[in-house]
């Protein structure tokens, strides 16, 4: 192609491109054309699957194909809120990944497979990922693990423990002051813990996220009854020679009274209620399953 004609072709292409995007802007369309796939840092995501951090769960599962209805045996690795699947256990790279946010896990009836369950998402026209385990125990274990895999769930647990630790430290400080060291009374079973800054997902905030300056991380002087029965705790954690520093405190988010509840999580800010919800769901499904057999 001569230089001139390729220049003309290019110019025509650019004109066409400009016309198309102007037309779409006129239509007020804010979505991109259907052909464009959203980018993802896939290489690094795949690296996360196989890097040295320990996975949360691994095992073989049968996964129903996207186009055809056959179930294929795949090796699965669950890490955080990412469920990776590989063709073989030895494969170096995953075939794919399922991001586990805003999903529910349900047992399901399958004509061809026993021990089947499905991962379902909230969004419109979402895919349903059908999977089957090799036995009852594996199915229950996977359902449990997957339903607690979301970032939001982890965040909730962390917040709850952060709050508990502050309470405990506060009590340790005040009992020191009174010169009466005593063992902290464990929380009453079944008490309702409402998270102080109850936002499962923080509201959109530009501007200062308040840092937690109020909490002092200084180690309390030895609490007489604080030595644990399970030495595995002391040994494992304090054994690290790097002078274990507490991790930086996640910033507290200021809420304006009624904080919006995230649509990707069941609607409750109370940790113990939320946890009950997860547990109840699994228990109910289990009963359903048993009855259907």
């Amino acid at each position, binding site marked *: 192609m001569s230089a001139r004609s390729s220049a003309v072709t290019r110019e025509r292409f650019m004109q066409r491109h400009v016309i198309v995007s102007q037309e779409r802007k006129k239509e007020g369309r804010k979505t991109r054309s259907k052909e464009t796939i959203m*980018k993802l840092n896939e290489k690094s995501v795949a690296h996360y699957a196989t890097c040295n951090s320990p996975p949360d769960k691994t095992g073989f599962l049968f996964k129903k194909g996207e186009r055809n209805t056959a179930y294929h045996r795949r090796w699965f690795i669950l890490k955080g*809120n*990412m469920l990776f699947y590989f063709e073989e256990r030895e494969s170096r790279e995953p075939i794919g990944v*399922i991001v586990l*946010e805003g*999903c529910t896990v349900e047992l399901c009836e399958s004509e061809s497979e026993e021990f089947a369950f499905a991962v379902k998402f909230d969004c419109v026209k979402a895919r349903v990922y059908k999977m089957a385990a090799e036995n009852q125990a594996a199915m229950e274990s996977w359902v449990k693990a997957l339903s607690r895999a979301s970032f939001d769930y982890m965040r909730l647990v962390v917040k709850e423990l952060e709050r508990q630790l502050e309470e405990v430290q506060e009590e340790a400080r005040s009992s020191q002051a009174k010169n009466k060291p005593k063992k902290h009374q464990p929380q009453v079973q079944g008490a309702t813990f409402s998270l102080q800054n109850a936002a499962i997902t923080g509201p959109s905030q530009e501007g200062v996220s308040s840092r937690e300056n109020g909490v002092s991380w200084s180690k309390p002087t030895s609490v007489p009854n604080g030595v644990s029965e399970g030495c595995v705790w*002391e040994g494992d954690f304090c054994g690290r020679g790097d002078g274990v520093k507490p991790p930086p405190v996640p910033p507290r988010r200021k809420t304006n009274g009624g904080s919006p509840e995230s649509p990707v999580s069941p609607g409750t800010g109370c940790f113990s209620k939320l946890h009950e919800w997860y547990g109840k769901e699994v228990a109910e499904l289990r009963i359903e399953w048993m009855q259907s057999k």
Partner: protein
Amino acid sequence: MRFNEKELVFLSRQPPERAAELGMRGPKKGDVVKRRVVKLIVNFLFYFRTDEDEPIGALLLEQCRVEREDDQVFSIVFLDEAERKYLFECDSQEQCVEWIDAIVKASYEFMRKNLIYYRTEIHRLTGTDPLEQYGISDETRFQVNTGLPPAAT
């Protein structure tokens, strides 16, 4: 590698932890700074053209390092490809610091470390495992050591 794109796009519409219009430059040689709307949601950083509702792309914020490049500029680098930097230009030093802080804390693994620390500390101070009352003390994701449940006492 396949991924559930539709669900990710849906996720990008949830209330973000943090959102702003920043200058963003990709890691490829020849990439230039472009204005993008950047949203931090769970452990993903979504980026949008300023006039579009659907994200152009997402970065999973695991196994990455965030660094201050300049007064108002920070970078994200993924550990498996440390030479490739994503650059972000902020409008102020304060904004830059806040974004760095937010992104560091946005990883699942960071939260897990926090959790393990709190769990261990509470146990050390009280003699009780705080997760026991919720019946989740055996979950691998909450374990102190390398993914194995602690030895039965």
